[in-house]
């Protein structure tokens, strides 16, 4: 089996949006997939960006939990 060359966290983060937009080579995709599998920090960023894109692209309105506005306001005023 061919070895998948390692990729650094910093390079992965530079390529993340290209990866999500499917604009990377198969080789780079494999390197990113391998890295995300073992790196919890990059996986968290990866999941966050992907969730954000999904959220924005669906255009749906989200119902906020009860008391959210009051808690948010309190946090703002306490800064």
């Amino acid at each position, binding site marked *: 089996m061919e070895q998948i060359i390692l990729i*650094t966290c910093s390079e992965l983060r530079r390529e993340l949006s290209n990866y999500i937009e499917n604009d990377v080579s198969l080789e780079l995709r494999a390197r990113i997939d391998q890295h995300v599998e073992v790196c919890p920090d990059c996986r968290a960023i990866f999941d966050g960006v992907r969730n954000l894109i999904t959220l924005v692209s669906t255009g749906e309105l989200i119902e906020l*939990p009860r*008391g959210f506005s009051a808690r948010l306001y309190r946090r703002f005023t306490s800064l």
Partner: protein
Amino acid sequence: MAQDQQEISVAKTEYREAYNNGDVRCLLSVFATGFTDCSDGEPSFYGSESRRALELRASELFQRFKVELFVIIIDIIVKGDFAFDWGWHKMRLVDKKTGESSDTKYRYFETWTKADGTWKINYIITNKEMPPRMLPEEESASAETATAGNAAS
């Protein structure tokens, strides 16, 4: 990615594969002559001793265990013919006799030197990663947020 960083990534991949294949010769080939070895749980070795010490240690390790090494490189910085990188080594050891396995995560820092057009590890230091722990001020802030959240709902 810059050419030198790519070459170091390839060398680091060979390092990983050497562990995963139990290949002592391949492992040694990634290190410069007379490198410095400050690996976790070992005395420091310098000069010609470091190569022999690594050879003995790796041979013993590969004889007893099947190694699965996962490498996370945070970044590689290149300054001419000198470079350094840092990250984690996640090592799973599977005992060849009993099948028992253990996982250890190490932090590592390495320096690299380019000699005859090839990047080699010139210095390596590793130590065991510890479980995450909140600082006291973060703990109290977290408790306050939880209390405020409970009161509001």
